[in-house]
């Protein structure tokens, strides 16, 4: 493994980590205090080796009031339009029941459909934009216009070139078309072709898969790993294999849909704890162990905690040390979904486990995807050999789903070798360092400008809060006019008053690209009045940045 301190400012860890965990559990056994533990005047800092800074600033009250006002006006006009459609004054463009089904139970009257028809349709041109190049730090967009207010689109044939990409999950910049980089992938493509035409259990296990699984296991520092063709299916098809009826799933409030789907499919009892809130999780664990199953009062067969490494809508990082100490105290299992954090955090890109300086043996099931940091597709589950062997025979995805195709597997292999330094260069380590620098710079500048940003200071996912529904559309459109592509998120994916724009910083972004984006954001923030933060550090960010640069490097 390449020595990290040779290339960038390394982080010291791994020295007293085992001793620390033991010490902490020893103190737990004595007096059972979980939070705010003090030992010789040192507070919770003994669990976290570096500062854990997260921001979830609340906007001033008038912003919430105005957001509701905006939604109120939108709803009133929605009712007006629905009335006009029902009475034939306006053409019906959206799905509606057939004439013969008018007296049946209505299909499209619920709030979600109302919202889609009347509010989402008005700003629909900001989503599903087709791109026509590799989603690297810049990409090409196909221009499309609408003649009837977003009900239908048509392509003008023009291509908007070199739009700066702030929306793709390209954390380490491995989504590239450089011929030298893709040499091995091309060779494998010519050797194996593209299709597997079989499942893993039949004839779909290639030597490439075996090589990839060994590499993933070495990368993460675990005994064994298994790879699947699709990241979403990894979660939703493997959780039912691990838990069943009579088990308890404790899932974070803001878990991804794949985890929720997997939990529901398994048939186990699901209880939700507040986002990243250790007190809430501990209360649930205590209740589960004291009271057991709901009617029979028997002990639960298994208690499993589902958390994610980085939550993609909030940009927050899981409080892993505390959760691991809780799981050891109450003898539960931990399933960690590192979809966004593998490759993106940690000194050498090995995820949140390395970020907190913990050992991968602490987490029972390590899951991740190759879509985000490795520029490929698919997911993995890693852990003890017994676990992976069990999944090889009992997981739906392993038994029935087509396996990963060889060029994609080769792309992951080359990206992982690059990260680990096995290809003889320090490029992997440089990418990880560059991502860290870009993340810190971007977040710091946004804080200084006065925007409300959620999440941990080290997470490359940066949500910028917009709040009002009118500003969602205006923000995305104006950023595209300035040649910057952003992703905005509104109601169903976020709470109704907290719509946001989500930036994904990449190692492939240069300082100039980030500066372009930041200047555009500054201008747009003033024009749209988005700078709600009460804690902005400086009104002269250029001067402030000068001094900070000298101290940083």
């Amino acid at each position, binding site marked *: 493994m390449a020595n990290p301190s040779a290339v960038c400012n390394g982080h010291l860890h791994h020295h007293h980590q085992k001793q620390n965990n033991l010490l902490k559990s020893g103190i737990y056994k004595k007096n059972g205090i979980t939070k705010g533990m003090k030992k010789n005047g040192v507070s919770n800092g003994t669990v976290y080796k570096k500062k854990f800074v997260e921001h979830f600033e609340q906007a001033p009250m008038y912003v919430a009031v105005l957001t509701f006002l905006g939604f109120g006006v939108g709803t009133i006009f929605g009712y007006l339009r629905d009335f006009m459609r029902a009475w034939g004054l306006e053409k019906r463009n959206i799905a509606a029941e057939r004439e013969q089904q008018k007296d049946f139970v209505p299909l499209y009257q619920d709030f979600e459909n109302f919202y889609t028809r009347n509010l989402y349709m008005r700003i629909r041109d900001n989503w599903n934009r087709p791109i026509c190049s590799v989603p690297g730090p810049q990409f090409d967009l196909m221009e499309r216009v609408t003649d009837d207010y977003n009900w239908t689109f048509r392509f003008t044939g023009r291509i908007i070139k070199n739009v700066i990409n702030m929306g793709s999950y390209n954390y380490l910049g491995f989504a590239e078309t450089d011929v030298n980089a893709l040499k091995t992938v091309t060779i494998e493509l010519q050797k194996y072709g593209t299709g597997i035409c079989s499942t893993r259990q039949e004839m779909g296990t290639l030597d490439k898969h075996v090589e990839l699984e060994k590499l993933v296991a070495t990368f993460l520092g675990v005994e064994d790993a298994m790879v699947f063709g699709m990241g979403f299916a990894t979660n939703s098809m493997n959780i039912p294999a691990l838990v069943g009826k009579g088990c308890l799933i404790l899932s974070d409030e803001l878990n991804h849909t794949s985890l929720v789907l997997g939990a529901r499919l398994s048939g186990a009892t699901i209880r939700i704890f507040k986002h990243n809130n250790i007190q809430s999780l501990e209360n649930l664990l205590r209740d589960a162990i004291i009271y057991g199953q709901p009617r029979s009062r028997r002990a639960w067969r298994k208690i499993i905690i589902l958390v994610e490494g980085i939550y993609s809508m909030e940009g927050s990082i899981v409080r892993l040390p505390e959760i691991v100490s809780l799981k050891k105290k109450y003898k539960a299992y931990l399933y960690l979904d590192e979809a966004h954090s593998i490759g993106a955090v940690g000194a050498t890109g090995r995820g949140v486990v390395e970020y907190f300086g913990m050992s991968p043996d602490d987490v029972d099931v390590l899951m991740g995807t190759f879509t985000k940091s490795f520029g490929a597709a698919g997911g993995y589950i890693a852990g003890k050999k017994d676990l992976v062997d069990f999944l090889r025979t009992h997981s739906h995805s392993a038994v029935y789903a087509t396996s990963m195709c060889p060029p994609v597997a080769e792309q992951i292999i080359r990206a992982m070798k690059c990260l680990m330094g096995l290809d003889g260069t320090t490029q992997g380590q440089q990418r990880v360092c560059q991502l860290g620098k870009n993340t810190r710079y971007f977040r710091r500048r946004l804080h200084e400008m006065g925007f409300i940003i959620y999440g941990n200071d080290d997470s490359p996912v940066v949500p910028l809060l917009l709040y009002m529904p009118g500003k969602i*559309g205006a923000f995305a459109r104006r950023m595209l006019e300035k040649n910057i592509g952003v992703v905005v998120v509104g109601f169903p994916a976020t709470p109704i008053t907290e719509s946001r724009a989500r930036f994904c910083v990449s190692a492939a972004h240069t300082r100039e690209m980030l500066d372009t984006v930041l200047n555009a954001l500054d201008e747009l923030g003033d024009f749209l009045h988005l700078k709600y933060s009460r804690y902005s550090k400086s009104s002269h960010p250029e001067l402030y940045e000068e001094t900070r640069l000298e101290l940083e490097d």
Partner: protein
Amino acid sequence: MDIKSMKNYLYWLYCQFELITCSYLMEPWEKILFYTFNVTMLVMLLYTTYIFVPVHISTAFQFFLHLFGNQQENTVSVVK
């Protein structure tokens, strides 16, 4: 120059109004409807204010004058 910056400021205020009330998202005929309604309400409010507020203020003023006038007499009698 002052007129230009004033106009820019007014345009910016109008944009803020559009964004906050979601009229930025509306089709032109909806905007006309919304603005007509708003302007009508505003005009009616101003008209009502113009007619009734002076009368109310003068009535209230007289009431308070009467109240304080009475009190002054009372205090005088107590001291005596």
